[in-house]
């Protein structure tokens, strides 16, 4: 009886432990935003993105608060929040998706694995299906996940006043760079 109980308990503990090892997360993911235009390059940095990766099925999601993007120039930061992103109305952007080729990633073996990420990207309240390349890096420190999104500004109903049309690029590059820790 005692043996059986012991077995049962260790089995439960093992499943709990195994589950905890599957999921990785961060609350301080980095996101960079680049807009390259003839007149002016614009860059912004974010340091508090949340990301969760389930290594078992490849589910990947991350989210970031729009007001957390830091610009060098105060005026740009203001325009970004008030005119383009309306961050009071739409405070958060998120991506919910999948590592398409998750099976090709060996999370037990150190290395850099090229991945394809597919899912729903929500910006300014508009959700679009996107697919984009990225990498997963497994090393002694844990798991690092990175991806690059090329976002068409018009896809998300972001209106650019004609006055600054030449200043702002029609496509912006968003890079996500996360260092993930086991979730337990």
């Amino acid at each position: 009886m005692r043996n059986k109980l012991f077995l049962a308990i260790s089995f439960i503990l093992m499943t709990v432990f195994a589950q905890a090892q599957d999921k990785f997360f961060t609350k301080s993911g980095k996101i960079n935003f680049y807009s390259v235009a003839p007149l002016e390059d614009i860059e912004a940095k974010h340091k508090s993105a949340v990301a969760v990766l389930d290594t078992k099925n490849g589910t990947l999601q991350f989210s970031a608060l729009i007001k957390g993007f830091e610009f060098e120039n105060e005026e740009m930061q203001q325009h970004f929040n008030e005119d383009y992103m309306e961050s009071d109305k739409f405070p958060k952007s998120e991506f919910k998706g999948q590592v398409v080729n998750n099976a090709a990633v060996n999370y037990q073996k150190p290395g850099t694995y090229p991945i394809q990420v597919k899912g729903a990207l929500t910006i300014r309240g508009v959700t679009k299906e996107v697919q984009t390349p990225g990498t997963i890096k497994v090393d002694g420190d844990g798991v690092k996940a990175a991806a690059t999104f090329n976002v068409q500004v018009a896809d998300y109903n972001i209106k650019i006043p004609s006055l600054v049309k030449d200043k702002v690029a029609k496509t912006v590059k968003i890079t996500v760079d996360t260092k993930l820790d086991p979730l337990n």
Partner: protein
Amino acid sequence: MKRIVLILLVIIILAVGWYAYRAYTGKVKSLTEVKTDVKINAKELIAAFEKDSAAANKQYLGKVMEVTGNVKSVEKEEGSATVSLGESGAMSSVRCSMDTTYVQEAANIQEGNSITVKGACTGFMSEELLGSDVILNRCIVVTGKK
């Protein structure tokens, strides 16, 4: 001849001055130079967002606030640092992403101490598995420095 040199010199000084002035005023100001909108403790701030995040967003989003609380953890990464304030053991906290100029200083913050952090409120993150956090950005330490 001397006169021309002098005039040129004055023009150059004025140009450099103007450029420096523009560069300085155009930059996002450090929060040390910005007036505080709200003073609150971490527990109350978390409670406000957990109760009604839409209302709390309206009240606090984008505001510069001084938040006092218990240091739960200090996370350091290359070029960034995050200080979490709140009740130890609770799932929710106020996460303060430190200003790049304060990253070094963050290393001296002791867990368990009560400190006051000034930062710009960027909102509320609530994830099923990760708990919920109020996020402050570009933070500086007001009191509780070692």
